[in-house]
């Protein structure tokens, strides 16, 4: 490095180059993921634009048709168009995914940060609690909740949120502990900054920023969990074409009408895959690894 560079004379140009380079290196899979996620988000917000048929309209003459030009992904027993049903179901599935993840992260944040910041007894009690809850199968809390409070989109969200929270809480606690001992926190302390300010400006943002990526990963997982509940017959009431419900219904026809099981499953997988790819990419970018 030359001394002129130190003085910042050439500062602006390499920076621009860097930015350009970054834009150029966005991998193809990220574009694909963005497209998929965009499609499903659009489906969740305005399903009517994307549907080719009324997702609830029954056409008893078109029962159990294999995928065709008229029905892209085939029809179910009542002749309902599967593609339109998957599109229609995106709303519920995505709100369950997003809602559950948001709830789960919120709970995890409150508890995890409390445990991470608190020393001694509070931390010990909380982290033991996380351990115990963590030891339980993820579905367990969800099952218990749904069993007691019934199955609506809301209870489903809460159930999955509760089920996945302990894991996140553990991670957040660890993250807070890491950040707490980071050099910049000590630097701020050495500058005489009040503790609250350090927590607010340094610890929280840095402990939480890796969660952005986790959040996107979590959405896919939450949808999978929710569809798992539906699979056990604890999903949202029919005729809602929530993906899990579609999967659950399709299972019964899988030998003779494979598309009823494969297609909603693919929707779940493709969506979860896309958010995961996106989440990892964003996570890497946020950590400056790109």
């Amino acid at each position: 490095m030359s001394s002129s560079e130190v003085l910042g004379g050439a500062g602006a140009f390499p920076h621009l180059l860097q930015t350009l380079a970054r834009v150029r290196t966005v991998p193809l899979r990220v574009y694909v993921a963005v497209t998929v996620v965009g499609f499903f988000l659009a489906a969740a917000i305005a399903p009517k634009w994307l549907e080719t048929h009324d997702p609830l309209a029954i056409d008893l003459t078109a029962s159990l048709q294999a995928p065709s030009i008229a029905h892209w992904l085939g029809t179910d027993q009542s002749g309902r168009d599967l593609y339109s049903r998957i599109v229609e179901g995106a709303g519920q599935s995505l709100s369950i995914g997003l809602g559950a993840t948001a709830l789960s992260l919120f709970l995890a944040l409150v508890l995890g940060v409390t445990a991470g910041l608190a020393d001694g007894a509070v931390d010990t009690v909380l982290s033991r609690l996380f351990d115990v809850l963590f030891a339980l199968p993820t579905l367990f809390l969800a099952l218990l909740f749904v069993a007691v409070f019934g199955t609506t989109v809301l209870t489903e969200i809460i159930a999955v949120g509760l089920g996945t929270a302990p894991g996140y809480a553990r991670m957040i606690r660890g993250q807070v502990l890491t950040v707490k001992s980071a050099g910049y926190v000590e630097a701020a302390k050495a500058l005489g900054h009040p503790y609250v300010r350090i927590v607010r400006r340094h610890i929280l943002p840095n402990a939480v920023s890796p969660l952005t990526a986790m959040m996107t990963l979590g959405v896919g997982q939450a949808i999978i969990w929710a569809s798992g509940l539906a699979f056990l017959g604890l999903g949202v009431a029919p005729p809602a074409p929530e993906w899990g419900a579609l999967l659950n219904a399709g299972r019964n026809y899988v030998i003779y009408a494979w598309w009823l099981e494969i297609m909603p499953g693919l929707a779940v997988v493709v969506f979860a895959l896309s958010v995961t790819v996106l989440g990892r990419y964003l996570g890497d970018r946020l950590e400056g690894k790109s």
Partner: protein
Amino acid sequence: MLHLVQPEAQLLTVDSLRVCFARNVAEGTAVRGVSFSLAPGRCLAIVGESGSGKSVTARVLVGLAGHRARVHARRLNFAGTDLTGLDDRAWRRIRGKDIGFVLQDALVSLDPLRPVGKEIGEGLRLHRAIASREELERQVIGLLKLVGVQDAEIKALQLPHQLSGGQCQRALIAAALALDPRLLIADEPTTALDVTVQAQVLGLLEETKARGKALILISHDLAVVSRMADEVLVMRQGEVIERGSADQIFRDPQHAYTRQLLDAVPSGRPRGSRLSSSPAPRLLRQHGRPPEQSAARSSQIVLKATDLVKRFRGPDGILRTVVNGVSFELRSGETLGLVGESGSGKSTTARMVLALDLPDQGAVLLQGKAWTTLTERQRRARRRSISVIYQDPLSSFDPRWTVGRILSDSLLGDAETRPERQERVAELLYLVGLSPAFLNRRPLELSGGQRQRVAIARAIAPRPKVIVCDEPVSALDVSIQAQILDLLGDLKAQLGVSYLFISHDLGVVRHLSDRVMVMRDGRVVESGDTEAIFAEPQHDYTRDLLAAVPTLRGRQPQAHRD
């Protein structure tokens, strides 16, 4: 040198070596036309700063420049073998057997999960140089003994983290020497080592050379090179800008850059003289306060530590006394150097001075008032009068924050309004020699020197009386180190702050300090005026330390001629 070698007996010939990394030809050409040759028993030093292409050059010689690297050379010949056309299998036969390679930073260059002995024996096993397990063991222990490791039988079974840095580095060299290669390449073999250990490792390499091995030594540290090299290659941005015999290079450098590098080495240079070619001290425009005092030392004591003791419980549950009865005073405008090897308790002392750790016994008074005995809440308001510069500035910056935000954050309670803050931040950048363009950069986008400048700007922002500098330059290239040391000197002169300056590098400490305190095993073994100590060390340990410091040829280590 004892070995007179005919030119045709060259072991290694490199002619017009070019290496570029496929991704980006413009930026990625790491080596541009390097040529040299080397005979057995000779040592070639490749000198240059980070990114100058010296490591890539060395790695080409073992065929490990990286899978993206494209290597071109007019000639690349080792012991009669043309290295350019080798396939991986052929390379593997050469690596380790004919060419040994010692990487820098031994602690991470040894597999942390495997016993040291296994690592050393690996080369023997790979090249099927031993017949039995017993023989392997015997050879490994022999090698460890060869490199001067005590208790070789035990050490061979230990893991790298159980060994000291010096022992690891020796083990690594032992691994490289295992098959008695004709060429040994050592890439920064002594970086991160304490001076005494460094001296031992260099001694080991010298012995190797004396056994008739050819040696390529790669270093940014001219003092190290000065001791070992027969020939020197100075590289900068992938090009050889100067080459010649060591004597010629050190006594009569031709290229300005070589001179600059030489000048940057503080050891043996007059205290307070400029080390870098950076601009002369600029006048403060307005740092809120005109420089009341010149650099003159006053008698006012700003910091007083009395009988500090700190104990830590180790992972094994044993309580260790890390700092044991350290007392000192720091006067206004004075620089107190704190020297010692790793583990001597320097940093813990610094943390107690900063009240980041509290002493188990003793106390620190700041500006004559209680400091370590206060509660953190009481201390908070007064923290602004003492600040710190770390060795690793990167980790001390919130990675998400821009330079501008980092600096304005450090002004908390000082500059209240936004324009005020902006003005102060701009001024701070100016003071540390950074352009306003850096305001929007994030720490990761800065070079090491730039980061350290930002760290200094942050440290001076609250207008402290005392700045604790904990190894502020030890991670920097020598010329950047020179710039930072100059900057620290300039700031002291202009702001009238006092430094508690901690370093393991005696040259650096000597260059900057008014007084020096030598620590060992948590105790101060010697303290006094810098020149007195360096001229006439009283304690054996200080003498050992000084003796271990490598010095540039042509400069007298002890004397001051200017």
